[in-house]
């Protein structure tokens, strides 16, 4: 390590170990891809404002405060000791950790003195909530500032103090330019505030520091230590299970209703208020609750736009799979869908800028930051041991400390926590076992955490004399489907109360049940004796049922010549057509028109097909389904993190490029890519012959340039083969992509052999 400090960020980076570089790339993953060619390229990537902002956004308040101290230092470069003096309230280990975090991310650099790169300075507008220096604001402050301030009238001093507290920029109060009326305007006249645009003024740093007294950087921003909420784990899980049961049941009912009568798709997307009201009414819940359930179902991929004209909200095909799953799995699908959803259901009903309330399922609810916020909030809770957590306000407070620069994103957190509560992921600020499972290992983890807590499905009901059927638990899906036909649901929850009525029995008969089927069903599925009134009801309705007949046929044969029809009917050759007489002049068949036509033609008749406009469908079409998204196709806004191997490769790449840069070059040939000059070839073949490493400028197939030092092996057919020692690989280089070549001078020793 050289004794004198590295003069630049790039030079400092060069002194970092491979591990430290890896850590940098992990912490600032956006600079690692595509791999920077060398340290200089890395340093310039690190200076990109977007990258700096992103890195700063991820820092906690303590670390940012440490950074502020360096930024506010009168000279560039601050010794760590000076930091300790500046922040006396900060424990040493916290301070060291903060410095470590900053240097790891190259937001500060230097070993003996900490330097802040310019982009970082630009990105932090108001370090420690202090304004710019007076000179930068083009203000001439009075020489004895303290005395001037002491003489200020109290209301003017109050304005200054307010600006000195958190934000040095403030609005000028509205008002006509009757100069000097408000304290702020008087301060402007005194030259103690600077006007930065028509509306805003800024307090110069010197005044801010002065007013803050012995704590120019404000109070120490230590990690808040909120009171931990502790609950009995078992109670938490039971409550979570209650919420889960409720959610799964409700979503099932909701989709059942939408299956019968889909909700319309608004032109602006989403579900209309009328449908929302209808669902709320039918489910006996509030309208906001209906919106939440719609969003929950949509998030889990159970509901989507479909229908023949793609203008209806329908259950998806996944719904058919979902309802066959056991309760824990069903819940896991909902919970995982919610966790990764980019939508914020809590925004439903809020008014947009135009004053229009946002509808459920509307595209306006999409916030791409939502999954990250949800996960980060819950992740904080997951750090606490099982059975303990934080009250919502404390959690928000902690999140605000963790990412103060992103505090504006935390607005939806309380609503998100309430949603987690409703789902059973969270119970009063404590993660349930299933919630932990969800965070740790997704859907499977969630299901595992919930399994055993939810009731086992039951396969029977209790029939009562008031014609109610009580299913004392969630029903097996087969019986649930059956009962959905023969009875109406009156109340749902842990159990389901069905009521059999004349209407429901008639519906069952319409679905093709016979009276004896129904008697069987009730005898079989009821644990209690079937009440006489129920049996009587079935018989009574069955007695009246079917006096009017409606049937479905596939085709008909009609003719005005009744004799001909009789002939056709009695003709043995037409037996295959399965014809029967419905009325004089009309024969019908259960076979398709094509088949009947064929049979009749083969039998020697001359039938003509009729326009199928009046044809009756025998079977109702399968229930319509929306296509839905495939699970996992949700785009994840968070970048994939680098794997170990990728990381190592990238660091190696940078080092190699850097070595190449540093290698002393001898004879050099520069060429225009694509044109292989004789001198390039000559130099290369000399290198091959003499076994001398060459310095190559190379553009790969993706167009990214790199420099490398290669020990050439052969030069055949327009390709150079060689060993790149830095990268530890044998490679073939297309000669026409080589942009420049130089022999590495020998007295220096091959840089690769360092």
């Amino acid at each position, binding site marked *: 390590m050289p004794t004198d400090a590295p003069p630049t960020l790039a030079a400092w980076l060069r002194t970092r170990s491979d591990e430290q570089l890896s850590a940098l790339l992990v912490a600032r993953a956006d600079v690692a891809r595509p791999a920077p060619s060398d340290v200089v390229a890395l340093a310039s990537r690190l200076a990109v404002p977007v990258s700096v902002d992103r890195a700063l956004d991820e820092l906690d308040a303590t670390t940012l405060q440490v950074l502020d101290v360096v930024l506010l230092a009168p000279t560039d470069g601050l010794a760590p000791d000076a930091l300790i003096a500046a922040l006396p309230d900060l424990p040493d280990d916290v301070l060291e950790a903060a410095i470590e975090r900053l240097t790891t991310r190259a937001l500060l650099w230097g070993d003996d003195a900490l330097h802040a790169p310019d982009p970082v300075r630009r990105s932090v507008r108001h370090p420690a909530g202090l304004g710019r220096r007076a000179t930068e604001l083009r203000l001439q402050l009075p020489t004895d500032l303290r005395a001037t301030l002491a003489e200020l009238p109290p209301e003017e001093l109050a304005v200054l103090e307010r600006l000195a507290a958190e934000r040095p920029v403030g609005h000028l109060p509205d008002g006509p330019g009757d100069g000097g009326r408000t304290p702020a305007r008087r301060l402007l006249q005194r030259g103690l505030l600077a006007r930065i645009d028509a509306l805003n003024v800024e307090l110069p740093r010197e005044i801010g520091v002065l007013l803050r007294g012995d704590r120019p950087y404000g109070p120490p921003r230590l990690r808040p230590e909120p009171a931990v909420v502790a609950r009995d784990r078992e109670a938490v899980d*039971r*409550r*979570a*299970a*209650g*919420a*889960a*049961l*409720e959610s799964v*049941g*409700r979503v099932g009912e909701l989709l059942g209703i939408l299956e019968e009568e889909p909700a319309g798709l608004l032109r602006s997307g989403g579900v209309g208020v009328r449908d929302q009201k209808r669902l709320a009414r039918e489910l*006996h819940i509030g309208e906001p609750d209906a919106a939440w359930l719609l969003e929950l179902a949509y998030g889990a991929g159970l509901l989507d736009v479909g229908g023949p004209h793609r203008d209806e909200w329908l259950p998806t095909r996944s719904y058919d799979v979902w309802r066959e799953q056991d309760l824990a799995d069903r819940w896991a699908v909902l919970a995982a869908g919610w966790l990764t959803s980019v939508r914020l259901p809590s925004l439903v009903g809020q008014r947009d800028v135009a004053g229009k309330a946002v509808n459920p399922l509307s595209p306006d609810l999409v916030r791409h930051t939502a999954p990250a916020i949800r996960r980060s909030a819950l992740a904080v809770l997951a750090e606490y041991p099982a059975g303990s957590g934080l009250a919502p306000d404390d959690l928000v407070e902690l999140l605000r400390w963790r990412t103060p620069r992103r505090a504006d994103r935390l607005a939806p957190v309380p609503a998100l926590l309430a949603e987690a*509560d*409703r789902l*059973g992921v969270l*119970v*009063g600020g404590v993660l349930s076992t299933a919630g932990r499972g969800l965070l740790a290992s997704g859907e499977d983890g969630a299901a595992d955490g919930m399994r055993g*807590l*939810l*009731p086992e499905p039951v396969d029977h009901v*209790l029939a*009562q*004399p*008031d*014609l*109610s059927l*009580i299913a*004392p*638990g969630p029903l097996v899906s087969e019986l649930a489907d059956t009962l959905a036909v023969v009875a109406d649901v009156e*109340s*749902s*929850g*842990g*159990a389901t*109360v069905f009521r059999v009525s*004349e209407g429901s029995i008639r519906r069952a008969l319409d679905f093709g049940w016979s009276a004896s089927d129904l008697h069987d069903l009730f005898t079989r599925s009821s644990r*209690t004796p079937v*009440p*006489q*009134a129920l049996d*009587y*009801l079935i018989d*009574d309705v069955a007695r*009246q049922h079917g006096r009017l007949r409606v049937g479905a046929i596939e085709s008909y044969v009609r003719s005005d010549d009744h004799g001909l029809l009789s002939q056709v009917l009695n003709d043995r050759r037409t037996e295959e057509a399965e014809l029967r007489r419905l009325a004089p002049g009309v024969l019908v068949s259960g076979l398709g028109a094509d088949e009947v036509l064929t049979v009749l033609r083969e039998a020697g008749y001359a039938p003509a097909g009729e326009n199928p406009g009046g044809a009756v469908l025998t079977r109702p079409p399968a229930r319509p389904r929306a296509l839905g998204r495939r699970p996992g196709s949700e785009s994840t806004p968070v970048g994939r993190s680098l794997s170990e191997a990728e990381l190592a490769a990238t660091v190696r790449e940078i080092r190699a490029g850097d070595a190449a840069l540093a290698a002393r070059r001898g004879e050099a040939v520069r060429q225009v890519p694509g044109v292989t000059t004789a001198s390039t070839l000559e130099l290369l073949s000399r290198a091959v012959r003499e076994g001398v490493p060459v310095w190559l400028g190379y553009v790969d197939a993706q167009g990214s340039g790199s420099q490398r030092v290669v020990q050439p092996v052969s030069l055949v057919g327009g390709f150079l083969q060689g060993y790149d020692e830095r990268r530890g690989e044998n490679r073939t280089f297309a000669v026409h992509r080589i942009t420049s070549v130089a022999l590495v001078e020998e007295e220096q020793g091959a840089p690769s052999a360092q």
Partner: protein
Amino acid sequence: MSDGPLIVQSDKTLLLEVDHPLARDCRAAIAPFAELERSPEHVHTYRVTPLALWNARAAGHDAEQVVDALVRYSRYPVPHALLVDIADTMDRFGRLTLANNPVHGLVLTTSDRAVLEEVIRSKRVAPMLGQRIDEDSVVVHPSERGRLKQALLKVGWPAEDLAGYVDGQAHPIELDQSNWHLRDYQQEAVEGFWAGGSGVVVLPCGAGKTLVGAAAMAEAKATTLILVTNTVAGRQWKRELIARTSLTEEEIGEYSGERKEIRPVTIATYQVITTRRKGEYRHLDLFDAQDWGLIVYDEVHLLPAPIFRLTADLQSRRRLGLTATLVREDGREDDVFSLIGPKRYDAPWRDIEAQGYIAPAECIEVRVSLDDEERMTYAVAEPEERYRIAATAQSKLPVIRRVLDRHPDEQKLVIGAYLDQLEELGAALDAPVIQGSTTNREREKLFDAFRAGEVKTLVVSKVANFSIDLPEAAVAVQVSGTFGSRQEEAQRLGRVLRPKADGRQAHFYTVVSRDTLDSEYAAHRQRFLAEQGYAYTIVDAADLAGIGEVNGPDWTEDPAD
């Protein structure tokens, strides 16, 4: 997962499996805050309503107890949101209190200023409040006490009424238990009422509600005003009071259309109080005629709307409501609760039947097929005529006769709603008819004859729906009714539920025309019976087995006897 007897539903109904070993404990635990809604054979349904929760608070239960009871007895995990909601609802009670202030009289005070501000700004409440005393309290006009409580309940901030009751003018009343004893449930009912101050006691017909009233009077030992549905019922009260208490005939006055006596104990009919002449209630001063210490409302489910208004003015007097069922077809149960008081006691009918205090009953619906002519008349009738046509169909007559023939030796009532049908039945069955126009004297005479067994069958209109004590009636046949009134069904069933001397079963028949509105209404009423725990049977008229036949009634007496 525990194996409790209770299932908590999302709509705040509670299903209680009655055959579960813990069912009894569970019932005791949830009864304070949940209304028993249905009690059919296997699973009872309770409902947790805000009103029930507030009543529980008023009775000294807190949210923790409620939540604990639910969680402890629940078979499945209870939705967290529901528990939170319950706690929130209960928390609303008691933010406001009504109390007597030595200086300002009746005062509404709050422990939560925001709530007081909210209700003061409410249009519904503001007119009843007087001057603001300080930030936390405001004067209430004493006459508005009841209406204010009603209004506060509607805006969701029920007031805790600590203003207490006036004792009224003392008058010695004792129960005379020399040859009878108050039953346990009656005792519990009186205790429940007295501890709560005011309220409603729900007991099945025939379970001795009058005695609960008498016991309450003995507890109050003060002048009492008893409001009853009609004169006959009033006289029954009088007889009972004379027989069961220390009261003498002279101490009990009758205030009815016929007589206007005001005595220490006065029995008045709803009708006379609500009689208006020239648009004015003429008999309102009855309420002020004495310093009443107790007001008893018999059949409180029938309380007419004007009396609601009057009752609102009587909030400082103890009020006892008695009823067999709080179902009101007009849905004003909440007004009963807020004005008379919360339900202080109720017991499933079947429980009392099991204790032998009311007769077990068999309910049978007989379906009669109309003949073709009647069907045609029915099909073309105007909608408002349809029920009458179906209910009064001629085809019912032979069936009614057959039903009565099944019970040759029992005392029988035929109950209907249409006078011409009743007249016709009376003639055909050779039985006396009692209806609205029958004089009280004639009624008393016929009822006496019936009690004595001289008349075996009575045909009665809906005047007999209520409060007629006919202990020996063991068979009731209802042929037509007031649409689908469940209330009426309960009362009619009550006619035959008085325990029989030999403990034999009562029979309750409903004759309905098949496939008409009549059977629809019947279904509605029967659902109510089934919900009370009565299993009922439906038979076709043709299948109605005669006496001694398969499925028919047993011989009740040895013919040789």
